[in-house]
């Protein structure tokens, strides 16, 4: 009866969730996202099947390592053993099973036995395990081929043992805690046991250890894997790995015969773990109630925009500068968002970072002598990091409207013009991004060799290039940041606001459309700046080539970008003023 009620709850929760997702496909913004997301998934995951059917690139059935299937099995068992070992080392609190608050309210006071609750929890976790096994197998199949069903069942068996072992070990850890054994005493004991076992095994097998390969055979990491595999396949260490090999064997099986031989012992391991978990008489209810409440609080906070993340700040961050009570109110939002970035954006940190960058650069420059090798390597690294900051920075630094839109009701009450809100919001990530880029430019200017490909690069040229880039980059950053903020205002349902974003493959499709749209918009915005750069560069070069050309070109581009950014702020400000909270955001 109880099992029926729990199954009813689980089935209808899932069905209602799915029907809600299907219903929202009536809205064009979700439908378009679903189409794009579906096509992406199809081409990414399922095209592999089609390719093979059409005689595409054939992949080995079992790629493994060059050491053969047994080495793969040994290494997989070793990884599995390490993961399980960590489950005994890391936990520092009592067992807390993740129930939702509603489950706690309805199930804990209900006449349901502890065994039934555990069964419910285990069955619930089986849904995500099965889904994960299916997804991972599809992805793996796409790239590595092999028998599909055995791989999936093998992965399911591994994950099931892992899930049960994590639960069982957490019960055991709780029991140890109840007997007064502290977390650190437990860890000390485990590390001690590992150390004693390692020393004992060494002395046991030291005479039979396989010799290290010759130095000329030690290329890459392959030899190390093969050597480790060899050690764990011989002598007593193979017995240590034996139970873990049983668990991973179905997954690494390359033929149906191997799979059928391996699946029986793996299922037996699942059964043994199940008995262990069910027989562990540990109270989990109290810790689970606390855990569920914490998760619910954090989710609610994140949804309402009051929580910055699922991990709220633990300690106060020093303000980056003293905020005077009068003046441009946009600076208050800038100040607030700098604080939200964390403790790494205070002026003190930058005052330390700059001399450190200068002294590191100078010292490397001195060590590298006259050779351009190190300088070129650092220049290349700086260029790569600058490119990453330009492409990924606006997505990673989200302490702007994307963070604050869930509290848009608070922003709306402020006596501020829309453009002031937008300016204040976007300034903080733009400033952090620009500061990072300036630091990189400083390092690049110091490390730039005085000769590249036999062409002299005098100090004036280096400084001039760095200054030009330093003038243009903040404007590009600001413009690049305006675009996702505009998307947040115009398509709030598409953007992950706060930290608790929407889910589903239609959401993935929306993200793809947005990413493409964002880069197209930025490219369009860069065209006038590029034209301005060209015009000013030629005009300046006419007077003094190339320094004045470069600087005047950069100044021209920066002015155009700044005008575009100002217009963008003005337009987005009007959009914010017209933004109707009752239409889009959860109330």
């Amino acid at each position: 009866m109880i099992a029926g009620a729990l199954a009813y709850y689980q089935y209808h929760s899932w069905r209602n969730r799915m029907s809600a997702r299907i219903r929202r496909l009536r809205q064009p913004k979700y439908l378009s996202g679903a189409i794009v997301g579906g096509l992406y998934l199809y081409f990414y995951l399922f095209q592999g099947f089609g390719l093979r059917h059409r005689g595409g690139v054939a992949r080995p059935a079992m790629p493994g390592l060059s050491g053969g299937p047994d080495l793969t099995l040994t290494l997989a068992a070793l990884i599995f053993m390490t993961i399980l070992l960590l489950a005994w080392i890391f936990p520092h609190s009592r067992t807390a099973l993740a129930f939702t608050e509603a489950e706690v309210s309805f199930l804990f006071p209900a006449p349901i036995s502890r065994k039934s609750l555990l069964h419910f929890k285990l069955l619930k976790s089986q849904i995500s395990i099965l889904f994960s096994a299916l997804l991972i197998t599809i992805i793996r199949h796409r790239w590595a081929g092999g028998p599909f069903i055995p791989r999936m069942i093998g992965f399911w068996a591994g994950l099931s043992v892992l899930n049960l072992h994590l639960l069982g070990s957490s019960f055991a850890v709780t029991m140890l805690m109840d007997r007064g054994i502290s977390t650190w005493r437990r860890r000390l004991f485990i590390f001690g046991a590992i150390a004693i076992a390692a020393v004992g095994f060494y002395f046991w097998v030291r005479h039979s250890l396989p010799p290290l390969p010759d130095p000329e055979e030690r290329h890459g990491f392959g030899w190390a894997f093969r050597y480790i595999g060899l050690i764990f396949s011989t002598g007593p260490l193979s017995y240590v790995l034996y139970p873990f090999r049983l668990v991973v064997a179905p997954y690494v099986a390359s033929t149906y015969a191997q799979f059928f031989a391996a699946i029986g012992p793996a299922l037996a391991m699942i059964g043994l773990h199940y008995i262990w978990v069910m027989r562990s008489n540990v109270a989990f209810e109290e810790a689970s109630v606390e855990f569920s409440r914490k998760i619910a609080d954090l989710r609610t906070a994140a949804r309402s925009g009051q929580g910055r993340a699922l991990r709220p700040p633990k300690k106060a961050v020093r303000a980056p500068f003293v905020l005077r009570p009068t003046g441009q109110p946009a600076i208050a939002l800038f100040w607030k968002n700098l604080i939200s970035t964390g403790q790494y954006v205070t002026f003190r940190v930058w005052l330390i970072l700059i001399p450190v960058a200068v002294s590191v650069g100078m010292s490397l420059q001195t060590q590298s002598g006259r050779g351009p090798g190190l300088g070129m390597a650092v220049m290349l690294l700086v260029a790569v990091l600058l490119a990453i900051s330009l492409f990924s920075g606006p997505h990673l630094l989200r302490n702007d409207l994307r963070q604050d839109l869930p509290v848009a009701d608070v922003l709306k009450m402020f006596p501020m013009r829309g453009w002031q809100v937008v300016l204040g919001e976007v300034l903080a990530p733009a400033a952090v991004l620009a500061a990072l880029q300036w630091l990189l430019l400083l390092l690049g200017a110091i490390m730039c060799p005085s000769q590249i490909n036999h062409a002299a690069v005098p100090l004036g040229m280096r400084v001039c290039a760095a200054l030009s880039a330093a003038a243009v980059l903040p404007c590009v950053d600001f413009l690049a940041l305006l675009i996702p903020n505009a998307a947040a205002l115009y398509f709030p349902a598409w953007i992950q606001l706060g930290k608790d974003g929407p889910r589903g493959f239609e959401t993935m499709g929306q993200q793809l459309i947005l990413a493409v749209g964002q880069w197209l918009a930025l490219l369009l915005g860069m065209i006038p700046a590029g034209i301005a750069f060209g015009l000013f560069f030629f005009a300046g070069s006419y007077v003094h080539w190339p320094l004045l050309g470069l600087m005047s070109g950069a100044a021209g581009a920066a002015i155009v970008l700044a005008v575009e950014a100002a217009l963008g702020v003005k337009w987005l400000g009007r959009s914010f003023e017209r933004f109707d909270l009752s239409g889009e955001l959860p109330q």
Partner: protein
Amino acid sequence: MDTAPPRITETEAAAAPPQIKVDGLTKLYGDFTAVNDLSFAVRPGEVIGLVGPNGAGKTTTLRCLAGIIPPTRGRVFIGGFDLARQPIEAKRKLAFFSDEPRLFEYLTVNQHLAFVARIYGVAGCQDIARELLVELEIADKADKLPGELSRGMKQKLAIACGLLHAPSVIFFDEPLTGLDPLGIRRMKDSILKRARDGAAILISSHLLHLLEEICSHVLILKNGRKVIDGTLAEVRERFSEQAGSNLEEVFFRATGETKAEP
């Protein structure tokens, strides 16, 4: 309970121009009419209780008046300024307190006050902030993050932030939710103190007996429409069968809701 004499008399209040003036306010959510052609005015020193059953449109009304959501039709004047045409001037005069305190998790109590002071341009904010923190009994929490405060303290911080710029129009949405008896008493005193200082106050709450203690006027909404507004005495007179009826009885008669038999 605070019984200090009012700094603004009833005669002065009646003669003063309304601090809140609502004219034909209508708010539609798609086809659904949340608030329908609502008009009323609140003068300085008046405390008006906004009551109605669930879904009557109380919160939507408050959010429209605070400038959080735009009305579909109608006009709202705050301190004489048209909220749609002069939003900055109007918003400088108002404060809105929602039932759940809306705070920034990463700003300390002091940082919240500094932030709000800059937004509203409150010169000499440090002294005012200190006084408010002392009055609200959270002066010792000045460097704490909201996550380190209890719900009541968070609410006090939200109140401190809202009162920092000395608003002349104050909106409360269920201000007494989650407060302990002492907190309720202090909140009532605080509301009455602001009213005596000349603020026009609009409070939405389901706690009718508490509203009865602090409100001079009442506005009853049902299905987004105004049923009645006026002084407590006027409303009682219209909807009471006998003299001395309380607001609860008036509410049930006015809204046509059935009161559960004891």
